[in-house]
């Protein structure tokens, strides 16, 4: 059932390997009595500079995958490497950018100062020109001095994205960064995220439960089964970049989404009409 299509790659990027590598990763939470097997024997290789989306029903372990790659959790068994290194090593070199569902802005800092935070953590002098450029890139010109409390949800997420990019990371991890936004804002944010990403072309893993978001943004969509999460589909998205809003109403786009939707439904095993979002 796989839609076999040649992957359109920007120049100079290898399709497989050298990016993110998970081999036989299993994760079990809890202790003897209350064990939860979140992931079972997950293996995945992504290319350096590729954009991979992780799609799956709620609770299937998507966030757990991401948190393990970020080094926030340890796998129960299996190995994870990023560009051939351990997650902790990448983190220690301050080469990781993250944006989670909660933008986690520090409320007492201005927009500018929140974006500058990674420099302070890394103990490097802040690159003001870069911060300034990112503010433009995420469309927050005029709000540099605003505090998070004065911003809308979408604006806060854009600050979080800018902050994730400011150290020019080799790895970008996004966990439903637009999950809390309405459909319209979300779509706009997706277009912006793609534009930003194309400038830096970082190895990226996006966790989402939105099929259209995954198809719109990613080079590859990996679908997980319900818990314990296993890969049930590895789908190469056949669209070139940049992708515009008009793609959303194209037949190809709908076919791709329909296909993934079928995969998801059959993996869930007949939940009826209440499909995944």
């Amino acid at each position, binding site marked *: 059932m796989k839609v076999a299509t040649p992957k359109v790659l920007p120049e100079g990027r290898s399709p497989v390997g050298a990016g993110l590598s998970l081999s036989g990763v299993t994760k079990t939470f809890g*202790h*003897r*009595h209350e064990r939860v097997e979140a992931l079972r024997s997950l293996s995945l290789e992504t290319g350096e500079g590729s954009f991979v989306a992780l799609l799956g029903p709620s609770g299937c372990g998507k966030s757990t995958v991401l*948190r393990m790659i*970020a*080094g*926030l959790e340890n796998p129960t068994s299996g190995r994870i490497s990023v560009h051939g290194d351990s997650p902790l090593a990448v*983190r*220690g*070199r*301050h*080469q*990781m950018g*993250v944006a*989670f569902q*909660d933008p*986690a*802005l*520090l*409320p*007492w800092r201005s927009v500018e100062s929140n974006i500058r*935070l*990674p420099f*302070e*953590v*890394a103990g490097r002098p802040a690159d003001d020109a870069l911060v300034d450029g990112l503010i433009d890139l995420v469309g927050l010109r005029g709000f540099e001095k605003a*505090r*998070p*409390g004065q911003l809308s949800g979408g604006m*806060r997420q854009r600050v979080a994205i800018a902050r994730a990019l400011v*150290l020019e990371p080799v790895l970008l*991890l996004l966990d439903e960064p637009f999950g809390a936004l309405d459909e319209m804002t979300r779509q706009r944010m997706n277009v912006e995220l793609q534009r930003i990403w194309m400038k830096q072309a970082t190895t990226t893993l996006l966790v989402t439960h939105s099929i259209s978001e995954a198809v719109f943004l990613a080079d590859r969509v990996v679908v997980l089964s319900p818990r314990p999460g296993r890969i049930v589909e590895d789908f190469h998205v056949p669209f070139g970049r940049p992708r515009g809003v008009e793609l959303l109403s194209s037949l190809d786009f709908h076919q791709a989404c329909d296909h993934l939707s079928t995969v998801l439904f059959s993996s869930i095993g007949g939940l009826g009409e209440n499909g995944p979002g």
Partner: protein
Amino acid sequence: MIQALGVSARIPVSRQLRRHARSVGLAAVLLVVWELLAVTVFSGRFVVPTPTSVAGTAWANHFFYTDLVVTLNISWKGWLIGNGAALLLAAVSLIVPATESALITLGVATYCVPTIAVGPLLVVVYGPTGAKIAMSALSVLFVTLVAAVTGLRAAPRATLEMVTVMGGGRWKQLVKVRARASLPMLASGMSISAPAAILGTMIGDYLGGAKGLGVIMLQAQQQLAVSRTWSIAAVSTVVCGLAFAATMAIARRVSAGVEPALDSAIHPTPLRRGLAGVAIGAARVVAVVLFGLVMWEILVRSSGLSSYFVKSPLDVWQYCVSGPGSATHRSELIHGLIRTASDAGLGWLAGTVAAVLAAGILIVAPTLAAAVMPFVIVMRSVPLIAMTPLIGLVFGRGLLGVTLIAAMVTFVPSLVTIVEGLRSAPAAATDLIECLGGRRLTTLVKVRMPFAMPALFAAAKISMPGAILGSVLAEWLITGHGIGHAMAYDVISSNFSNLWASIAVILVMSLVLYFFVGSIETGIRRRVHAA
């Protein structure tokens, strides 16, 4: 400060045992160190006995059984009355919101008033035993009131709105939703108030009586019976810890199944900012103060008590400001107050700095924290102020004793509150710093400390009056200076005008500190939780 106890309700027993094993090990080590110090460094100075001799004395005296029973018998009544009054006040403040600030101020006043100084007056009104019950109740009221008000407010807004939509009023909301939602918070409040009730009774004992832990502790201190003083202190400590643990166990069972309210569910009533806000705040304080003075005057007039003991606000005003000799009275009062305030301030500062440093270390070293925190939680239920005779015995009658009491009274509760504040930083923010390659120290400085600022001020709000009270008690019992000593002298010499004036001055100073620091706390809290 109260949420600290919501710990570990669902952790498996085996893990709890293992965790406690570490703390028990640490306790054993500390006891051995104490024993060694007592026979080496402190040997021959007769101030620090060995733990074995302390235990031996307690054993030989049957754990002061008869006095213990007397104290407990008074304490449970005080606990019941104090908690009942607190719950009543909390319910009224919710149903009639206009009364809230006055009632809360009343609660704060019961906390700030130097219990030992009102004791002699309570004896006149209620008799010796009644006075101790009243003092015990006074020590409880504030703790439970704060817990109840916070708990009742923590009810989820959506559920409250459901009741409104169904046509229910404030009363229905209180009965159907708030009462239940407040249970976890209330449970911790009532548990902390169990040792507080014993503290109140012991302070009452210092005024006299035939039996009671406080009575015999003071006697032992005055007779320089070192081992005996220590063992009474140890027995009191254990009893307070047990009272706390037992209440907690019952309260946990009762409130099981109710999720503790999240901070985010608490919606503070919005304050006006700027000059208008300050003006409204000031007007409110003035109104509350006036209300308090009028109530005081009415109570005095209607009580039928001799004006020899009981002074009205007008009497105090005449004594300090307009009457004959008022200039002398005033300068004496101010002199004593400055002395007390500087001793208390020094101790408070030392206690706070130590608490901040200790909290930082505990956060950066979680393994250490796991072993130490249970001690700190237990320490909090030790009535430190009631240990004053012990401090007097060990550190003598000088400045050090007073400062040390103030520092200890500040340190333990502040440590708990600050650690909790440091831990309250959202996981998303601390995860972020980790992902950016920051160390624990970076997380502490960049994220946890700013998020803990409200907790720091919340701690200060409570510990500043606490330090003053501790100093007053220490001055009353062990040193020969300050406003506390002056008041003890007033009682002996029946100078009730000066006693009332002193209480008023201490109360005003403590209340001003409480509300001033509290307003800083509110401001910072808004800033920190703005997003």
